[in-house]
């Protein structure tokens, strides 16, 4: 089996072959043998040259990562044949950046209405969730192009709240 693993931005090519004693792995052309056990779904124990790693699979809101100890590696496993994946290189189209709600909550205050000129890192609006107020900041220097929500609005995680150009 051949996989293309995008890990921390870098793309790696992983070839796996199940053998009697374990898995024959080829990583970017480099060969090694891995002794693998799956103690529980989402966990694996992997031995490579005697080194032991307990690896956990993490999926939060469709964002996938591999956790070893407390080190997190965001990953996506792709089929090289798929073209779809080729697109979506950079998230940033022609200088417009979105401010999205990182979690469900309620908009309590708009600090920078549409049209306001903002510095990078300047607070644009405040949302409240779990009794905490949090300022959402502009990702770039520019101008608030539009606001998709008004004060008091309930918002979903990932919802686009405003655009800065």
């Amino acid at each position: 089996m051949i996989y293309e693993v995008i890990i921390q931005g870098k793309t790696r090519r992983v070839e796996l072959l199940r053998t009697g004693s374990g898995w024959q792995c080829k990583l970017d052309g480099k060969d090694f043998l891995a002794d693998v056990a799956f103690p529980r779904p989402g966990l694996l124990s992997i031995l490579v040259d005697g080194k032991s790693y307990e690896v956990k699979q993490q999926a939060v809101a469709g964002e996938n990562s591999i956790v070893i100890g407390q080190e997190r590696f965001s990953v996506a496993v792709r089929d090289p044949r798929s073209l779809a994946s080729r697109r979506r290189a950079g998230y940033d189209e022609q200088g417009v950046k979105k401010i999205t709600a990182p979690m469900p909550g309620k908009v309590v205050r708009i600090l920078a209405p549409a049209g306001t000129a903002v510095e990078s890192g300047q607070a644009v609006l405040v949302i409240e969730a779990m009794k905490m107020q949090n300022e959402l900041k502009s990702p770039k220097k520019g101008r608030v192009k539009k606001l998709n929500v008004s004060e008091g609005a309930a918002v979903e995680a990932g919802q686009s709240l405003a655009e800065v150009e």
Partner: protein
Amino acid sequence: MFKKVLIANRGEIAVRIIRACREMGMATVAVFSDADRAALHVSHADEAYLLGHAAATESYLNIAKVLEVARHSGAQAIHPGYGFLSENSRFARACAEAGVKFIGPPAAAMELMGSKTRARQAMQAANVPMVPGSARGLSAQEAADLAARIGFPVMIKAAAGGGGKGMRLVRAPGELESAFATAQSEALRAFNDGEVYLEKLIENPRHIEIQVIADEHGNIVHLGERECSLQRRHQKVVEEAPSAVVDEDLRRRMGTVAVQAARSAGYTSAGTVEFLVDGARNFFFLEMNTRLQVEHPVTELVTGLDLVHLQLRIAAGEKLPFRQEDVALRGHAIECRIYAEDPENNFFPSPGTITRLLRPSGPGVRDDSGVYEGWTVPLDYDPMLSKLIVHAPDRASALARMRRAISEYFVGGIKTNLPLFQRILEHPDFVAARIDTGFLDRLLASPASAKASSSKLDDIAAVSAALFTAATAPPAGNGRRSDDPQRSVTSAWKRAARDEGIERL
């Protein structure tokens, strides 16, 4: 001793109190909101009753409903835990009127200490060292004038406040107005009371607090200090006991002041007197928390006592079973507050379902948790999942033990602040106990030292990602075997995968 106790709280503290009651042979009554039917405190209790909708005001803050449950169930006492009604004197009085023992201090003491402004006045009268500032609520204008007089930086605080809510630091006159507004609205939201006041900021202080315990027969004892300087936006994150800067002499002096503060307030049960300690080890009264603290376990581990057991005994009218001279500290204890929040994204709360939970255990490790694998962390309440506490013979080994425990801790399905602790515990200044209340915010401001994770680990991670995928790949042609160990968990991956055009799974 009480036969039945109602716990007017939820989450890990409700579970912790239920455990104490069980150990003392008391029946327990839990209360819960719509969001908590499947919560741990409900299944751990002997009885459980629905309060109402998820919103705290309709459930855990609903005094009438809680008392109705107490009456119906025949509970003789109510333990409020912390947060919610724990510092609400109206609730304490309502309990008294309903003939149910409120496990905590007298309402009068709560009211005195509950209003930071009145507390300041009382403490000044008792000659407790204070930070310069206003002793009463202020208007925006008065705040501006006072700030100008005592000089910036200053802190704006909610009179009814606690836990950093309605609290703002102001470094320059320009920031004052907006900060004042936010603090006021936050205070209003959190405590139904917009009164705020102002204090001079002690630069780079330590936050060190003294645990006191008082019975109803006039005996008041202090149980030493807790070092709580590790805070994020005035929220404690890591606490320890003892403090590296408190020696026997300072401990005795701070303890004496704390006991006298408690006495002047007519205090009973467990309480905490918080101090700011400056570089010269001068200490200033900050506030008194008239409840059990989240960080009470570090005191329990170094003193060998159980504070909730003691609260229950005291509420039942018993005398303190020891005197000041019997209190001795052994070893060192550290607590980390495990939150469902994303340290890589402004610590935004991360509610959701816990798909996998690996908890640390073994020598010197205590995990006071309120969650379980499969539990869905609701959006409606404080996102603390667990208190992880370690105990060891000295601070160095306690640090090492906490590092070990954190490395064993894994919470799948939601983000947690576990990675943050790794950073803190390895930081040379923390290791050397060179900390102040600004330490953590400075640490977070500094770029997360991209400690080049051994490329070796990158390789393992990459191969593992492929292995997880391969393990769920169907044997050529026919569908996935239903006994596939990977099936359940990878579903999320598969979903995401599909969008990205992954190898057909």
